[in-house]
């Protein structure tokens, strides 16, 4: 019964790449990025912004130019990169674990990164800008690797990986809490980091996150055609000529690289990895592999807009971006879920 339902769904998926949707999401991202670049405490006229971005001479002052090119633009770009990374890795995890609730932090990446960041904060209070991302990245990667090695049965059963991910996550959180209790001075920075922040965006962060995110995207691009087979049982996947075990490892590794990069660049930003994939699939009625480019683009726009909110709602102060993503994301997500369900009922 379950099997036939899945097969039916599989056959329902459009077999061609929906290029219109990708183009629309790309335009959407371009628009959000322009919008985001236009707002900030310093008022800049739209024409001078566009001219400066295109490298055309105009009357903008040196200071305003620096603010635009070295403060605002990297921040918007970083928001876009992190948004696309989180949305994509969420989508991939959901396919790999056949679980619609899987999110980028499922395998202990969040807790691991949190622990890494906490260790960085405890070890030195001076100039963390350099070492914090490295610690967070290492923490996330080590936590996911630990989950892999502990769950020996991953090749046979992805749910045992999820369980060991939860165990590793709790373990890392326990150590993190212990460290925080021992060093109360770091409570605020750790808390602020956990809520996610793009305040520290610089071109160098943008550069290295682009590097890692591009690698993951390239890998995912080559396996994307086979990715949907993971939604089926392993036997069915084999019958389609796909080796689900190998594929699963490649997919999880690239998704983890995306998550670790996002976390290292901007802390923990929740909800993007769950909301965006479901949103895009809900709107396009398409399967994961066809939707991956659109999911990445919509994820980018979503976070760019959320960050615009974080910067402008309480200006000149900042709101933690995680608050915005959850506040906007949760109701929107419920709306999409409900609409999708009603659509199914009327079929």
């Amino acid at each position, binding site marked *: 019964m379950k099997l036939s339902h899945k097969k039916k769904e599989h056959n329902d998926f459009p077999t061609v790449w929906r290029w219109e949707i990708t183009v629309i999401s790309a335009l959407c991202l371009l628009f959000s990025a322009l919008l985001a670049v236009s707002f*900030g*405490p*310093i008022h800049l006229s739209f024409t001078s912004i566009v001219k400066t971005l295109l490298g055309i001479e105009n009357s903008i002052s*040196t*200071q305003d130019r*620096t*603010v635009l090119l*070295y*403060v*605002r633009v*990297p921040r918007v770009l970083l928001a876009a990169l992190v948004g696309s990374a989180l949305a994509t890795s969420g989508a991939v995890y959901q396919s790999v674990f056949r679980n619609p609730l899987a999110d980028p932090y499922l395998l202990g990446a969040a807790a691991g990164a949190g622990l890494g960041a906490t260790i960085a904060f405890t070890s*030195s*209070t*001076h*100039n*963390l*800008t350099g070492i914090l991302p490295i610690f967070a990245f290492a923490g996330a990667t080590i936590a996911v690797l630990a989950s892999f090695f502990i769950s020996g049965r991953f090749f046979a059963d992805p749910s045992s990986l999820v369980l060991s991910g939860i165990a590793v996550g709790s373990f890392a959180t326990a150590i993190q809490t212990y460290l925080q*209790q021992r060093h*109360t001075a770091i409570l*605020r*920075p750790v808390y*602020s*980091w956990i809520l996610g*922040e793009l*305040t*520290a965006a*610089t071109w160098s962060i943008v550069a290295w996150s682009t590097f890692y995110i591009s690698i993951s995207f390239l890998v995912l691009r080559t396996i994307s055609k086979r990715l949907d087979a993971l939604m089926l049982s392993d036997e069915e996947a084999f019958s389609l000529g796909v080796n689900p075990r190998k594929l699963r490892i490649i997919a999880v590794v690239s998704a983890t690289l995306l998550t670790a990069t996002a976390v290292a660049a901007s802390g923990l930003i929740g909800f993007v990895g769950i909301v965006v994939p479901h949103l895009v699939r809900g709107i396009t009625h398409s399967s994961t592999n066809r939707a991956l480019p659109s999911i990445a683009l919509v994820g980018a726009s979503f976070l760019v807009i959320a960050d615009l909110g974080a*910067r402008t709602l*309480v*200006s*000149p*102060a*900042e*709101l933690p971006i995680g608050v915005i993503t959850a506040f906007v994301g949760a109701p929107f997500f419920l709306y999409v879920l409900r609409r999708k369900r009603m659509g199914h009922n009327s079929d």
Partner: protein
Amino acid sequence: MKKKFTALPIFLVLALCAQLGPMAESFASPIKLPKRIISLSPSATEDLFAIGAGPQVIAVDDYSNFPKNTPKTNLSGFNPNFEAIVKFRPDLVIIQSSASKSDAIVSQLKRLKIPVYVEHTPETVAQAYSEINDLGMLTGKISGAKNVIDKMKKQITTILTSGKINSQNKLFHELDNTLYSATSKTFVGKVYTDFGLTNIADAAATADDGGYPQLQNEYIIKSNPDYIFLTDGESLESVKSRPGWAGISAVVNQKVVILPEDIPSRWGPRIVDFYIAVAKALKK
């Protein structure tokens, strides 16, 4: 202003209470002066040693690092452990109201009839004085406390008369490198107000009732502060290397001041040192 003090209610010293004035209702003082004091607040520790009650202190929390000769223990002031406190058989415990589960600890200590003084984070220098005064009365060092307060008042007045500056000058107080700051509503912020400086964080006061908003990078660049006070291990060089910051007046004129650690977060006698540090920076 309100200070809660719970003591052995049987032994009330009326004469002392009379001196307490309007606060007397919530106050009671032990007839025997405490000889086994535990301070779980770094500021209170500084107060106690300054007023001459140091010899009566048997244990202080792990953050009480001043003065040097404090009986430092691994007791936590932030997350106090009831049993660990009781083990010292204290006859007065000073606890911060912001400590986790402070209410529960206070009521447990009450049950054992151990006097407790709950320190509320002061918002003004006047409140810091009244804490020193309270501690003086509790430990029998009333004149010691009075001397400390008088000396502080005198020093601060002297610093302010010579150090007050043009109110057009703007400052940015940096708590950490994600640009959290303190408004004029806070203890630290009021010190700057005393010097007549304008705090750029005040524009963001509505965003954080506690007085510690996170400012936007771009806003700080736009505000162009004349002074930057750092408390987070950053320096003129590291601040200068931030994009867009090289043109900020404070950076251009090298008026980026590294405040001594701890001082802006302690409201003991070393507040004076904070005033001195600010005055020195303004004179440069």
